[in-house]
């Protein structure tokens, strides 16, 4: 009884409600002629697409930098890598890993700068991260127009220059991971084995990393910076490392997303992406200063489940397109909830 109560307070009512809501959606789905198998396939697919973004939240939360509202920086690095990969005409396995490989140096560099910046503004990380993210997205918007890309599938046909808003990667590395060992059952169920394996592998690496000496030090910095300092740890260095890792994951994340989605989305597309990842990890039970692998998996699944199921079930039940509004309320509500919760660092 007591532990049940404890569980509820730890997990938080909003999350439990969301969980129950999602279960109800699945139960109700058949009554509104929504195919369960298609839905599950869809949820898995989206889970894979977004898993890395959610995972990218972990290191910064653990190191005490808060929620990474500036994930767009990593996404931008990934976009640079993927556009370069397409520009160089890398195909299939080379295309995918080429994109990742090309984006990592950018991600490390951006992350390093971003980390330096966040170290200067301790306490205000989240607001500043958000605006740094916005500003860099806008800066890249200009760059996409100016940079001398010339792949015929990439640039605007009529102007002869400037990248398109969406670039197809059909024939480059579309579904490279999705189709790897994919299992097809019936018409509408596909298990994207490759993508889930990749996400799982990254999560495993993160799990390992958090257990290394550096990972342990990083967690300690987030848990109690003074303790870490007294033990000879440089908080700034750990924070910078966490930001770099988060940024690299963001870069890899967008490439995984693209290969499943089939397009590279440029310009203002990265603006809103961090918010979804933030909402997902919070729904998974993380707080502003503690996150675990379980939070990532549960959160990504719950949030993407919600995104998939609300449109199909609610819309067919109520005959309206209300799901978008439900999504806005739920995802932002959970962020507000997390931000207004008393930080549970006992001091």
């Amino acid at each position, binding site marked *: 009884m007591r532990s049940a109560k404890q569980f509820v307070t730890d997990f938080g009512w909003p999350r439990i409600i969301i969980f129950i809501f999602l279960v109800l959606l699945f139960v109700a789905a058949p009554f509104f002629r929504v195919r369960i198998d298609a839905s599950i396939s869809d949820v898995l697919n989206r889970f894979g697409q977004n898993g890395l973004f959610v995972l990218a939240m972990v290191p910064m939360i653990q190191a005490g930098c808060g929620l990474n509202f500036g994930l767009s920086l990593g996404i931008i690095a990934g976009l640079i890598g993927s556009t370069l990969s397409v520009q160089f005409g890398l195909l299939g396995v080379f295309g995918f890993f080429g994109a990742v490989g090309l984006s990592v140096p950018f991600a490390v560099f951006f992350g390093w700068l971003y980390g330096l910046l966040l170290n200067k503004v301790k306490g205000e990380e989240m607001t500043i991260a958000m*605006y740094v993210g916005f500003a860099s997205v806008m800066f890249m*918007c200009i760059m996409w*127009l100016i940079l001398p890309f010339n792949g015929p599938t990439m640039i605007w046909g009529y102007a002869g220059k400037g990248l398109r808003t969406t670039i197809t990667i059909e024939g480059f590395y579309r579904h490279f991971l999705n189709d790897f060992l994919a299992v097809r059952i019936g018409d509408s169920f596909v298990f994207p084995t490759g993508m889930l394996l990749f996400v799982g592998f990254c999560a495993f690496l993160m799990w390992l990393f958090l257990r290394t000496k550096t990972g342990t030090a990083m967690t300690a910095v987030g848990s109690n910076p*003074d303790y870490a300092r007294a033990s000879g740890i440089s908080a700034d260095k750990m924070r910078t490392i966490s930001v770099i890792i988060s940024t690299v994951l963001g870069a890899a994340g967008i490439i995984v997303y693209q290969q499943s989605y089939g397009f590279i989305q440029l*310009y203002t597309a990265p603006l809103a992406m961090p918010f979804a990842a933030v909402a997902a990890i919070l729904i998974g039970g993380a707080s502003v200063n503690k996150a675990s692998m379980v939070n990532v998996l549960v959160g990504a699944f719950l949030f993407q489940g919600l995104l998939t199921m609300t449109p199909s079930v609610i819309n067919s039940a109520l005959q309206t397109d209300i799901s978008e509004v439900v999504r806005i309320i739920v995802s*932002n509500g959970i*962020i*507000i909830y997390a*931000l*207004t919760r008393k930080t549970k660092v006992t001091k």
Partner: protein
Amino acid sequence: MSGTKSLGRFLTEYAVVIIFLLITVAAIPSSGLSIQYIVQEMITRLGRNTFLVLALLLPIYAGMGLNFGMTLGAMSGQIGLILAINFNIGGVEGLAFAALLGTAVFMGWICGVVLNKAKGREMVTGYMLAFFINGIYQLIVLYMMGFVFPIRSSAILLSRGYGIRNTLNLEIVRQSLDNFLMLRLGEYTVPVATFLVIAVLCVFVVWFKKTKLGQDMRAVGHDMSVADSAGVPVDRTRIIAIIISTVLASYGQIIFLQNMGNMATYNAHDQTSFFAVAAILVGGASVKKATIPNVLIGVILLHVLFVVTPRAGQNLFGSAMIGEYFRQFIGYGVIAFSLVLYAWRARKDAAWSREGLRGSSSGAVPAAAAAGGEGSAK
């Protein structure tokens, strides 16, 4: 204080303004726009935007930072306008009706309560709260109006029978405040009534700072715990600051929209706080300090740049989109830059104030232990 130091201080204090001024001055010639055109645009945009930016002042005084939650006020203003259009109330009366409805008071209260629970991260919370309430707003306006709440004018409803249309024609109130007292000065037209309203608000702000409540707000803004131990009701004061700001923001949005003449029902408020915050920061304000001149300078500078950049982009790069993105970049960049500058300076100042305590043995400063009271070293 040596000369170089005070010069350095001046430069950091006004860095944003100076940089902005330089960019703007550089961009004007390349835009090829005439000075007359720019001046007329400025007059229009001052009237349109100043009120919204002024709404940011009080929370800054109360130490709550930039009120990104002002979007809530904007949404309240829009609800007021929707109802005015619904009842077909036009002209200045329509604006007054929309303003009087006062959903903003309730919204402001919600915002204040939430921000009190998130002390120390008001800005990011306010920002997310705006998103959250945006969801509620859509739920009400897009699904409940005409369904739960009766709407008598079917012209503003979507054809499915409920929900307000995407774009609302504000013809009946369009520029009614601006035209109420339009003055022609040579080749310029000046919306005197709008400026009068803004002037009244400025007077109110100045007056308000002299009241007991204003003084309490300053005290809370400077040091919450000292104010609390002196018996100032901290939470209540903060809520009042946010309520006033929200209400002013709703008026500001009404003034903004009457000038525009139509309203994007679901998007008009999206960037309200972005513009207002960028403007006040461009004007040289910081998270902790803002004045009416900051507001006026900021609105003018930001909007000159906004008017000029698309043309400049077109002329220089052959693409209007570049100018478009550039001004977005500048807007976000200026906010990020000011926030960074402020946070960095706050830490620097804290370190600076402790520097006097160091130094070697013999010259021990008696001040030393005093630091115990204020020391923020962590």
